[in-house]
């Protein structure tokens, strides 16, 4: 699916104080300020100012960095779980990612907002409504990174029986599928405001989802109109992206990206982003020395992801090279320490990539789909609705609603 016009995307993960388990010790604020609205606002504004394509917000039904089930979960996606199990010394507090994304929406105008949301044990109907809401409040900038953790501690939190890792993926796939049906359950022009007949909406353009999966069924329709993007952009880790019907895969290696790319004709996955943990030189201290200092507090054990430890110039060179790689459509950068590495990337890396025309930041009002070069999908329930051309206005919902008012 990659074409010469596919924009190179650069996403950034904004959870906690950064991915390193000792990041909080090098933050610009005290631990008690981490969860304050002003700090969350400042971080997301910094990400938009830097020009990132999108921010991702990590989450889990478990406290960050903690797994209570002792099941040896090697990798939860937050990069911390291997080092900070129960009794760990890291951050244990977190505001729900969907709400952090929604809160960020009015504070930004171009940044994509991608929330991690667990899709195995919770209520899919609520989840689909929440994600559609993020898309509405951000005028089309919402993404969903699907959490598939089967952990028994998560099941206990929802009062449900734990399922196998395999079953968790199947249930998450059902959650994605029903979400997609619910997002389409209102056609774009369902709200007609027709005085003559007294009808606010056209019931022929609002559809039951009628989904029956292995572990739940949902009748629908959605209680919220179709998201501005038509479909919220669905992200997933590379190993499960195709099974989940995701639009975007986050991969740990170029090899994995190549595997997905050779299959993408048969799947929904249209973009592959390489995950990259980042430690940069800063304030005259080399990245390697910074990492040593961080690790002296709490070791950052390796994750399946690539870890970049070096200078801004070296990162620029790496990203320039990746931008020309035909199986990679972008990267998700995972800063070791937000208050240091996010700043370094924003000041020392992205401006040069822009100058080299390797990367173009999204512009105000652009949807996340537009930033990623993804089409606005046709509505599966509409009788004669062709897919919009890429770059076409995503504002059809608003326009149609307003026009007949």
């Amino acid at each position, binding site marked *: 699916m990659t074409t010469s016009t596919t924009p190179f995307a650069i996403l950034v993960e904004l959870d906690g104080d950064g991915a390193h388990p000792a990041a*909080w010790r*090098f933050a610009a604020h*005290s*631990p*008690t300020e*981490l*969860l304050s*609205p002003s700090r*969350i606002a400042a971080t997301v504004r910094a990400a938009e100012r830097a020009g990132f394509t999108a921010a991702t917000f990590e989450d889990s*039904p*478990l*406290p960050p960095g903690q797994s*209570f089930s002792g099941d040896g979960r090697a990798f939860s996606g937050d990069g911390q779980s291997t080092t900070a199990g*129960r*009794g*760990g*010394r*890291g951050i*244990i*507090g*977190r*505001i*729900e990612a*969907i*709400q*952090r994304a*929604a*809160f960020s*929406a*009015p*504070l930004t105008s171009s940044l994509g907002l991608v929330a991690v949301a667990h899709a195995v044990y919770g*209520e899919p*109907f*609520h989840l689909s*409504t929440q994600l*559609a809401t993020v898309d509405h*409040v951000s005028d089309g900038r919402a993404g969903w990174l699907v959490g598939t953790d089967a952990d028994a501690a998560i099941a*206990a*939190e*929802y*009062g449900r029986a734990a399922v196998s890792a395999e079953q968790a993926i199947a249930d998450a796939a059902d959650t994605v599928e029903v979400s997609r049906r619910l997002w389409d359950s*209102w056609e774009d022009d369902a709200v007609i*405001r027709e005085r003559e007949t007294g*009808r*606010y909406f*056209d*019931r022929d353009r609002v559809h039951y989802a009628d989904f029956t999966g292995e*572990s*739940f069924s*949902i009748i*629908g*329709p959605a*209680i*919220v*109109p179709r998201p501005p993007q038509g479909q919220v952009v669905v992200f997933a880790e590379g190993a499960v992206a195709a099974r989940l019907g995701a639009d975007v895969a986050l991969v740990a290696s170029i090899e994995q990206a190549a595997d997905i790319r050779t299959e993408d004709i048969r799947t929904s996955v249209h973009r592959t982003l390489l995950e990259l943990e980042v430690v940069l030189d800063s304030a005259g201290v080399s990245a390697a020395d910074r990492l040593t200092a961080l690790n002296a507090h709490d070791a950052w054990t390796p994750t399946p992801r690539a870890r970049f430890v070096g200078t801004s110039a070296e990162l620029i060179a790496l990203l320039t090279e990746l931008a020309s790689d035909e199986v990679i459509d972008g990267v998700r950068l995972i800063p070791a320490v937000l208050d240091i590495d996010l700043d370094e990337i924003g000041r020392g890396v992205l401006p040069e990539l822009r100058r080299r025309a390797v990367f173009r930041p999204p512009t105000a009002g652009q949807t996340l789909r537009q930033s990623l070069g993804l089409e606005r999908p046709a509505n599966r329930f509409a009788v004669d609705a062709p897919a919009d051309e890429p770059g076409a206005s995503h504002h059809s*919902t*608003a326009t149609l*609603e*307003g026009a007949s*008012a």
Partner: protein
Amino acid sequence: MSNGTRTATTDPSRRRQLQFGIFFQGVNFSTIWSDAASGSQTDFESFRRLITTAERGVFSAFFLGEGLRLREHLGRLHDLDVAGRPDALTQLAALAAITENIGLVATQNTTYNDPLDLAHRLASLDVLSGGRAAWNIVTTDNAWTGANFRRGGYADHADRYTHAEFVVNTAKALWDSWSDDAISASRDADSWADAEAAGEVSERDAYFAVRGRGRLPRSAQQHPVLFQAGDSAEGRDFAARNAEVIFSAHGVFEPAKTFAADVRQRTLKAGRPADDLKIFPGQEFIIGDTEADAIDKARWVRESQVSPQTAIAFLEAVWGTDLSSFDPDGGLPDIDPVQDETGETRGAGFRGKRPREVADGWRAIAAEKDLSIRELVIHLSSGRGFVGTASGIADQLEPFADEHAVDGFNVTPWLIPSGLDDIVNRLVPELQERGIYPTEYAGSTLRENLGLRPPLSRREEPGLARLRA
């Protein structure tokens, strides 16, 4: 008008004050969608406009309703009313970013939410808003709504308040699971938080057994404020035991006083001070330049709310059958309702009515007042609402404050998004001048702004602690 008398007898600086909240219902027939000034129900700009106006008018709360299944009428989607609304907590998280003081109230159901998940989402909004979140507890439990959820219609209707109390207590346990000083004050501390300070919560009732750990400290107001709206004896007792604000339907003076006396008595019996439970009835305000202008406007509002089709549908919800062959400007149907009980698919206001009794009652009103179908429906929905000039309405509101019939009103705007403009620009200054409305926020948290005590589980009084045990 009695301006002279009023200022002579009352010192504005010492009067009891009323407060306003705004109730953005999102699904109802009271929102006029056909007028040129009617904006989008879902665009964020509509919400921004409303909430910033409300905050300018020192409103204490912005309140979102909930309905977890799109309403149906005679077996098909009900298409005459505004419909389609965002997830309340997610929407309020976005609104938290553009407001400073106003409370953010999410209606959330206790039957179709997972208790710990719900508690965490409420705590998230509370922390994210700097202590401005509230939870309006509703107990909708019908199987029709359950068709959108994993467990379906699992709960016995008789258990709905027992289960609701379990969900509330589970939430409080989660909110209290962190000690006050759990998070380290310094980056040089041994760990980010005292791991022992964030304990595990394990709760069960007949339907759920949940176990988990809190992921958040208490907010600046400790817990989200608890709202409740049930009006049955059981609902009022539930509110008296658990809630801090009761969202009542009694916005007319005498019924409001009777209601207040009743719930205050129940609150005392529940071992709480009578003023622990604030009373906020829902109300509409229709403000004109003159009394005659206001009455004209009210007529226009009612006619816009009750279209001919809406009038017929209103009757159909009781009759249970297609009445489209009847003229909305003609008399009531001579046929009898075909159903024995009204359903739940049109919302709580229609549920559980006895159709034949209702039909007979309406026929009697229509006969007595010589009303057509549409005029009857307009008549039935006109009981609520203050109509008048700003100063005339302020006159009507004074006794509510002076006699403490209510603590405030939850304003239901009939026009989105401009429906608060008249209230904030014209009525609020009148009330402020008379000393019965705040001129500024008392603090930054909702609890402070409503004049509430700390949450029940966080009070030091030994008497209350004993009652809780």
